């Protein structure tokens, strides 16, 4: 029972973590909570399903293309909505982010309708719905393993991009001191676009995985997931990428344990209680580095 809850929580947590890194990276470079990030996640799921049903593409190809489309949407979102406000007070950009969230949600409602859709399971490779491992009462499906592999693979890739590439280092430099970064010859807007693309791609992957996992997608699915992932990012320490990963997993596990042992009605309540506790005890988050990054 406990093992099963842990597996479910880990699955959910890795998905939260994928979304949370998008919040935290964008916050790192432009100190903006991109509330429309949840909608990019939702678009990822819809793009993928549309590419499968309307264009007849195989699952993996559709997934890859949907992720690329979302990366481009992220860049466009920044250029259209946030770039003109770069020198404006932060509150203006924040309200714009909420506005873009509502706008994208309603755009999706117009395009795809308000009814939730099932994921076209026929397009999925057959093995995904089989049990990979059964030990007593604990079961692990191939789909869960697929989610683990993709999520962990994406995180490792993200870590390498941030720490081993020139653009990734420029991203970290920009997050630490924008003026100094510009004085190095770094094209600040290009690096910000890159950050949006990277975060949006991760979010899109999460959206697709969730749609497959729960076998459903709907235009407002980005809202709750977005709020939860934002909570995970804050929990881990906003601005810290490893923090977002840890925060996502902690939140997912807390939620699954809360649902399993208390009541599934308290699922969200337990998650938020954990977040509040961490924020009260450690305001900069689990891995938040208040001092050195801003010195």
């Amino acid at each position: 029972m406990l093992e099963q809850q842990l597996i479910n929580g880990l699955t959910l947590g890795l998905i939260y973590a994928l979304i949370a890194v998008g919040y935290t990276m964008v916050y790192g470079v432009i100190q903006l909570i991109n509330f429309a990030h949840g909608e990019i996640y939702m678009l990822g799921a819809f793009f993928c399903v549309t590419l499968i049903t309307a264009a007849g593409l195989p699952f993996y190809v559709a997934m890859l293309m949907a992720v690329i489309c979302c990366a481009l949407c992220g860049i466009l979102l920044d250029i259209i909505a946030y770039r003109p406000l770069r020198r404006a007070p932060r509150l203006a950009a924040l309200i714009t982010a909420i506005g873009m969230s509502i706008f994208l949600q309603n755009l999706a409602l117009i395009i795809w309708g308000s009814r939730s859709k099932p994921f076209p399971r026929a397009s999925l490779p057959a093995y995904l719905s089989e049990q990979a491992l059964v030990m007593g009462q604990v079961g692990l499906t191939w789909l869960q393993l697929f989610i683990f592999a993709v999520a962990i693979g994406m995180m490792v890739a993200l870590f390498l991009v941030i720490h081993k590439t020139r653009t990734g280092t420029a991203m970290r430099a920009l997050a630490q001191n924008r003026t100094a970064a510009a004085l190095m010859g770094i094209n600040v807007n290009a690096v910000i676009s890159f950050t949006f693309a990277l975060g949006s791609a991760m979010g899109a992957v999460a959206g697709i995985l969730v749609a497959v996992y729960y076998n459903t997608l709907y235009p407002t699915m980005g809202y709750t997931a977005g709020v939860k992932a934002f909570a995970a990012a804050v929990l881990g320490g906003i601005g810290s990428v490893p923090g977002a990963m840890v925060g996502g997993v902690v939140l997912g596990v807390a939620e699954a344990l809360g649902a399993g042992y208390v009541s599934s009605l308290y699922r969200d309540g337990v998650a938020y209680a954990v977040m509040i506790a961490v924020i009260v005890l450690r305001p900069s988050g689990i891995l938040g580095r208040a001092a050195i990054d801003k010195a």
Partner: protein
Amino acid sequence: MLELNRVQAFYGTIQALKDVTLTVRSGEIVTLIGANGAGKSTTLMAISSVVAVGGGTIVFEGRDITRLSTDRVVALGITQVPEGRMIFPALTVLENLRMGGYLRRDRAGLRADEEHAFQLFPILKERRKQPGGTLSGGEQQMLAIARALMARPRLLLLDEPSLGLAPMVVEHIFAVIARINTEGTTILLVEQNAQMALQVAHRGYVLETGRVVMSGAAADLLADPKVREAYLGDGT
């Protein structure tokens, strides 16, 4: 090489630069001295296009750079070591240096320049894997200069390199500035320490509330009674 022609700049509604006209010729060290708030740093930030220019023109090697973006200005060969050093605190010393060479693609040249930087400042080699934020003030200043040199600038803008440093360290920094210049880099130096600045520079400009009020050969300014009284601490 660089010409500022009646440059004006504003912070909001406050006019920080009213009329700055100055010239830097290839191969020179030119210094800009003046009291706090005279507009010295703003002048450098206007050249680097971090502060928008509200009037006048800035011409670099015959090309109008007044409205270029900061990264374009750097690409043309003007690099700045900003006031307060602005080291990336969570990047290692080596990563800080790599960011200095961000626009360059010649790997071999970059490697060679890293070695050159470590020759100028051997302490940086020892600390190359440490986060920049853990360095002392003097080491950070060395790193800031080394980082700027990684771009192979033709014109180096230096803002208050002596600020907050012990006299011994200041001596070292100024010796390196002179050496960088003899190795072929033109320098525009902003300093509160007018004595040191005028000793190392060829020419100087005196800035007062956003205007150039005096200029000339560094030796002449150093001997000028008005300069001595206002900026070199020769009280009456």
